[in-house]
């Protein structure tokens, strides 16, 4: 990270936070509060994921005394969070409250900022839970009572001046360790999938059994093997509640993920069957098998073939792109063909047949591409 101008003691805490916090926090804005040396950075905004959204808290250190504990300013919309903290820290009196953490602050311990943030975020979760509990809505009370036991569930009551009140749930789905299922997976954490459920509050005239707004979301890592947009949510039947809906959803989701993981091997076999025809790939994605590049030639004309293989393979055929090794445009960039997605294909073919058909197609296409490259060069 850019830690230029951050006093080393603070930088150590920041770096520890960024590399060890279980969620991916971001430092959005760093600035200096010093009178003299404006280059010494002692304030920053930390963007913390919460309930599929973000909360932004300002951490104020003192560059005059970087060893001292920081101060935290919460979002303007969470003004009651301070009261909540004061009430709860007093009641519980537990050793790992945020207050205790701040009162015996040790600036030389790089883990401190992360510990503080974790404690505050946990409290924030309790605070939002309490706010949701206080909403006077029978249906919501029922939903909360039936699903609150789920581990990792987060709730949020949004109330703006213009917007109608809404309660948002972020329900983590499936306990599958997807990273463990993929061999050699580089992910730091297993990708998470959440169902976002939004209930409007206090609209007495809306039929009580109508479906809440549902949306499936996942961490971006999952994209490499499974596209969450392709998943069709099961219908929400009249009079359903979340506790009924979720098991069904999880079951079909898990089935599709298992299938998606098994498709990695199908893609691998496809890349392997290309090798006898094209030679060893120059480059290939060995983990998710989504990309491969081969060197091909047609007479004296040599070119690269880039294969991009979607998660829907073999239902969806791979995209091909040819790149000349001999032609460049006026900017010195190698000439490339547009992405080719239309050529003879059947998902029911053996992978060796797929490879053969592509090879045959490319024998003709190479001539077209060569002509295209030569023409493009003549125009310059």
């Amino acid at each position, binding site marked *: 990270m850019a830690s230029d101008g951050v006093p080393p003691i603070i930088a150590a805490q920041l770096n520890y936070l960024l590399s060890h916090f279980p969620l991916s926090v971001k430092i959005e804005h760093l600035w200096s509060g010093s009178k*003299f*040396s404006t280059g010494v950075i002692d304030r920053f905004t930390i963007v913390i994921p919460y309930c599929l959204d973000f909360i932004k808290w*300002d951490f104020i250190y*003192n560059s005059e005394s970087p060893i001292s504990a920081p*101060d935290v*300013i919460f979002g303007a919309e969470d*003004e009651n969070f301070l*009261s909540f*903290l004061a009430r709860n820290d007093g009641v519980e009196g537990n050793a790992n409250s945020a*207050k205790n953490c701040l009162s015996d602050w040790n600036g030389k311990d790089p883990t401190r900022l992360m510990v503080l943030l974790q404690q505050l975020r946990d409290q924030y979760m309790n605070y939002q839970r309490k706010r949701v509990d206080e909403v006077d809505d029978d249906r919501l009370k029922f939903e909360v009572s039936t699903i609150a036991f789920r581990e990792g569930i987060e709730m949020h009551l949004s109330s703006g001046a213009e917007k109608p009140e809404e309660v948002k749930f972020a329900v983590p789905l499936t306990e599958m360790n997807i990273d463990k299922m993929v061999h050699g997976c580089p992910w730091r954490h297993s990708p998470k999938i959440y169902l976002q459920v939004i209930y409007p509050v206090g609209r007495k005239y809306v039929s009580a059994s109508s479906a809440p707004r549902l949306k499936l979301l996942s961490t971006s890592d999952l994209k490499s093997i499974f596209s969450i947009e392709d998943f069709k949510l099961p219908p929400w039947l009249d009079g359903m509640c979340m506790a009924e809906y979720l098991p069904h959803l999880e079951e079909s989701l898990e089935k599709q993920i298992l299938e998606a993981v098994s498709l990695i091997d199908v893609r691998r076999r496809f890349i392997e069957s290309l090798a006898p025809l094209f030679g060893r790939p120059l480059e290939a994605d060995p983990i998710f098998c989504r990309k491969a590049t081969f060197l091909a030639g047609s007479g004296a004309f040599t070119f690269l073939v880039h294969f991009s293989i979607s998660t829907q393979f073999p239902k969806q055929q791979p995209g091909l792109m040819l790149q000349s090794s001999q032609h460049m445009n006026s900017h010195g960039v190698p000439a490339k063909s547009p992405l080719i997605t239309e050529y003879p294909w059947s998902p029911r073919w053996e992978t060796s047949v797929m490879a053969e058909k592509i090879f045959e197609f490319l024998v003709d296409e190479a001539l077209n591409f060569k002509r295209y490259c030569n023409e493009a060069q003549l125009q310059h």
Partner: protein
Amino acid sequence: MDDLPIEKIAISGPTLASLIQRFSTSPGPIDGLLYGHVSLLTPSTLSDDTSSSSSSLPSTSTSLPPISSSSQTLIATITSFFSLSAGHVNPLLLPTPPPSSSLLGWFSARRRSPLRPSLREFSLSHSLSSLPSLSFPILSSRSSLSPCIFLLLSSPIYDQTIHTHEYRAYQFRSSLLSFDPKSIEVINIGPAFRSHYGAFSPNSPFPSLPCDHSSSMAVDDEKEEEERLRAEQTQLDDCAEGFQVGRLSKLMGNEAANYSAGLENLYGKMLVKIESLARQVEQSSALVFEQENHNRKLKYKAARFTGSE
């Protein structure tokens, strides 16, 4: 200890100006204590008799608001402050307030930060207002109040062409465990503020000047007082270099031209003295500034060293 709502917070212009000045010249954030008093304004229930019929119906007089705490307005007046570097306000170790004022609360001044109370400010306000030993009486009332005033000073996060000082006042309500934003009224001198004159009480007594020796000697048992006055007089005489108040009468009449030249000479000397004094102050301030900068650099260096350990 009551948790009565305060209507508004008044601060004298010079006090606020000096608070802002103290903040803008300090190298880092500062905290401090606010002193003053809280007074009770009983709203005037007397109004012009607009309808003649009311006199014939004496029962309407019962509609006058009853004298209760809800109909009375509390005004907190900040008369002085005491500043410390940030993080040094300890509710258990507070200096004694200046004479005839009470600890109203505290302030926090931090540069380039949002103008919202922070976690630390909330906690400190909470502990200050929850210590029964700190509660003070409300003037002309039997109730008391805890130090619940909080003044927050800041400056904008982003650099702006015009430098602005931002401040906001709050009352910490211990019953609600929350900050209640309050309007702050800056009181200056002038006809518009005449009604407030009574709300301020002098916090430094007017110095006793020996104006007239002959008549005030009725009480002669204060020998020591006289001694002290004499010593002060000699000090004054030193500055005046032989020019006594009595000689001012010579400014009129025949000798005036002669005498005024001497007086001007005295003023001239005084000006030179003041100028050299000012220069000395300037030079020593520059040295102090340089030393502070040097210390700061050393501090950063030390911090870098401990950080790299």
